[in-house]
């Protein structure tokens, strides 16, 4: 989510590279985020290869901002 909040859209391969995840793990995470409505996933073909593009949704941005705000509140108290 931190990666997606910084960009308009990102390819699956970029997310895999930056998170050092396996394709399987990342796919599971992406599916969970998609089911929660936090990201949109677009599957298309580029040069006959499947391409997956992820974009954060408004709901995802709000949820992430809420999460960071809660983290900061907790850290300020400790």
């Amino acid at each position, binding site marked *: 989510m931190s990666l997606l909040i910084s*960009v*308009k*859209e990102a390819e699956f391969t*970029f997310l895999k590279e930056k998170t050092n995840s396996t394709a399987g793990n990342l796919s599971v995470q992406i599916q969970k985020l998609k089911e929660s409505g936090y990201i949109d996933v677009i599957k298309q073909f580029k*040069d006959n290869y499947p391409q997956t593009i992820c974009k954060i949704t408004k709901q995802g941005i709000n949820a992430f901002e809420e999460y960071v705000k809660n983290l900061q509140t907790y850290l300020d108290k400790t």
Partner: protein
Amino acid sequence: MEQEKPLGQQESIQLITEMIQKVKHHFHESGTSAILWGSVVGIAGLVNFVELYWKFYIGFDIWLLVLAAVIPQVFITIRENRTRKIITYTEAAINAIWLVYGISIFLLVFYFNTVPAATDKLLSQHGVILLRRNSDGTIDAFRYFIPSHGSLLLLLFGIPTMATGIAHKFRIMVWSAILCYIFFLISCFTSNVYDMLLCGLAGIFNWLIPGLVLRKKYMRQKALSV
């Protein structure tokens, strides 16, 4: 599949910061387009200077090279879009600015090519002919480039409007900017009197109407959050 390890608060903040930094440092601007346009405009400008200074003509308008450069630019754009893995918000906004810049340059060239003839026509409709007295005493007809100030203003009005409309995906502003460009095209053929009318209409359609739409959305959102 690996078990998910719950993160502590400090670890979470650290991870978020690290990921945001990874995007910031991911460099994907190849510089190819800048090299292309820098070379083309540089060559055209310098060759044109040489032609004018030493008073000779190479046989064709060197600035046509700039027009021809659009073709490789299209291929560069297609190739770069294929290899691109992310689009940042900054990039999307800057792309909008360059697109609008391209449209504006094209319209400015149209302006340079149409305004002199249109001015001649408007002057002759009022029975006015511009004449020049040369130093040897002879008098001949003279075509002087009288700038159409209203047209230039309309061209400028369209630039931020279109860029904002594209960057924010605010369709009303995109359509307003297109209307502004239509007003610009019309103004290349009309007198100053009508240019001012077009400028006034541009102000209303470019900014007043979109502003009222934004105000309505803002007030609605404010009412919901109270």
